[in-house]
């Protein structure tokens, strides 16, 4: 494994499987009377969140605490923290406080990468702009493997699993990280979205593209619905929310087109009634609640593998 986790592309198939298998062992912890391990005692993890987040921040916090690390939460919510210089100053402050790992969420793509050049510890990207969110992809891969292959599927990838990612790919860091990671693990990924919500260079991504959700559903083992990110929509990407919902939303009628074993995923938070109907989100196919629980487990695995061993040798910057 590399010293930082910035992009899902940093992970080789071996790295990804090591994280998933480690998470598989750590999953048992949730059923134990004492849900804590002493492994990261004396290590400090800083949660540096420049953007709103509940589940990701809490998930990282729970993961670090279950491994006995000390957690410092830094939230720049509402403040006018600018990029560049001030991010660097924050980084140097954290450095002085002796942090061993920084978990960063930032609205600027590439913020985690910049930070990695300034601090000595490991940097974990918890979402940078519309770029990447690698731990979300890891927890999604973990959830898919557990659902389709059972909890005992150690060492196996997702070879041949057909995953359809639906919706606002353009603004989605979750989609990009998932395409990279799932294809590394051998899955066949298809993006289903209106042309206006696909990124420019999507033809260079390791996946197929479709504009029609209905033809993709019967061939899918996994359907991953993306949130329509209204806060990032500065132009008219589709005529109306209602029209989007009719063509790309997953409702109960559409769900019947899926094969019996197929599962429905959503990274949250959901817009019920827009990209996913309430009866789909609450159905037995939905993995949405599992994804939250698996998030803690997967992030524990990442923190353990980055911080649990020898410190990484100094890298000249």
């Amino acid at each position, binding site marked *: *494994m590399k010293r930082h986790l910035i992009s899902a592309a940093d992970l080789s198939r071996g790295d990804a499987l*090591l994280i998933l*298998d*480690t998470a598989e*062992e*750590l999953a*048992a912890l949730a059923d*134990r*009377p*004492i849900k*804590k*391990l*002493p*492994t990261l005692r004396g290590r400090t993890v800083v949660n540096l969140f420049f953007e709103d987040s509940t589940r990701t921040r809490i998930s990282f916090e729970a993961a670090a605490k279950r491994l006995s690390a000390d957690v410092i939460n830094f939230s720049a919510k509402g403040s006018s923290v600018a990029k560049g210089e001030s991010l660097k100053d924050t980084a140097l402050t954290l450095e002085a406080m002796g942090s061993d790992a920084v978990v960063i969420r930032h609205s600027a793509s590439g913020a985690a990468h910049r930070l990695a050049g300034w601090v000595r510890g490991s940097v974990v990207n918890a979402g940078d702009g519309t770029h990447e969110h690698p731990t979300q992809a890891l927890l999604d891969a973990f959830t898919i493997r557990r659902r389709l292959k059972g909890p005992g599927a150690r060492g196996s990838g997702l070879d041949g699993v057909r995953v359809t990612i639906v919706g606002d790919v353009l603004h989605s860091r979750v989609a990009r990280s998932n395409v990279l990671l799932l294809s590394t693990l051998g899955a066949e990924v298809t993006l289903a979205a209106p042309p206006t919500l696909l990124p420019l260079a999507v033809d260079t991504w390791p996946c197929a593209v479709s504009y029609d959700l209905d033809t993709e559903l019967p061939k899918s083992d996994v359907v991953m619905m993306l949130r329509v990110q209204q806060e990032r929509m500065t132009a008219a990407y589709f005529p109306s929310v209602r029209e989007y919902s009719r063509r790309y939303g997953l409702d109960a009628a559409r769900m019947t087109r899926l094969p019996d074993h197929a599962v429905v995923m959503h990274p949250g938070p959901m817009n019920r009634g827009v990209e996913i109907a309430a009866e789909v989100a609450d159905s037995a196919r939905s993995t949405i609640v599992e994804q939250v629980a698996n998030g803690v487990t997967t992030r524990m695995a990442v923190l*353990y*593998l*980055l*911080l*649990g*061993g*020898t*410190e990484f040798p100094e890298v000249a910057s």
Partner: protein
Amino acid sequence: MSATGQPVAGRDGLAVLDAEEIRRALTRIAHEILERTHGGDEVVLLGIPTRGVPLARRLAARIGEFEGLEVPCGSLDVTMHRDDLRLRPARALGRTDLPASGVDGKTVVLVDDVLYSGRTVRAALDALTDLGRPRAVQLAVLVDRGHRELPIRADYVGKNLPTSQREVVHVLLAEVDAQDAVMISDEGRTP
């Protein structure tokens, strides 16, 4: 302490126990466990990965043969409790698999292949504390090679093997290594 996987053929080393001797040692340990626990009631065998796990299963099978008693058997991974984690890159975890009956109020017998510094056993005792509260904990090992660094001793020993710290002891088991043997070699000469 054990080698990772390959059969011995061609490796420079001296066999100190062969398959027959390992079988006899385990048979004796199984009898001793029955004796010391007054018939093996409430005993749980927990193997420490990798090679402690098949050893625990073999002991459970033997106790089953002798007394017609089904002894619960599982595995206990100690990686997250080790004191030397920071000396090496983070390593993959082994499996922890507790029998459904749990460990509360039971006599837990930890099973490992080689007893050396005692640090693995210390980690196992810590890991066990987080899983429940056994009535008693005992330790069974196939080989005790000495050089303890902690006040820990085994209750059941397959063979006491005086070694120098330069030497390496490899336990090979059919379940993992395709054959049963205990080998001793000079570190400088092992591949």
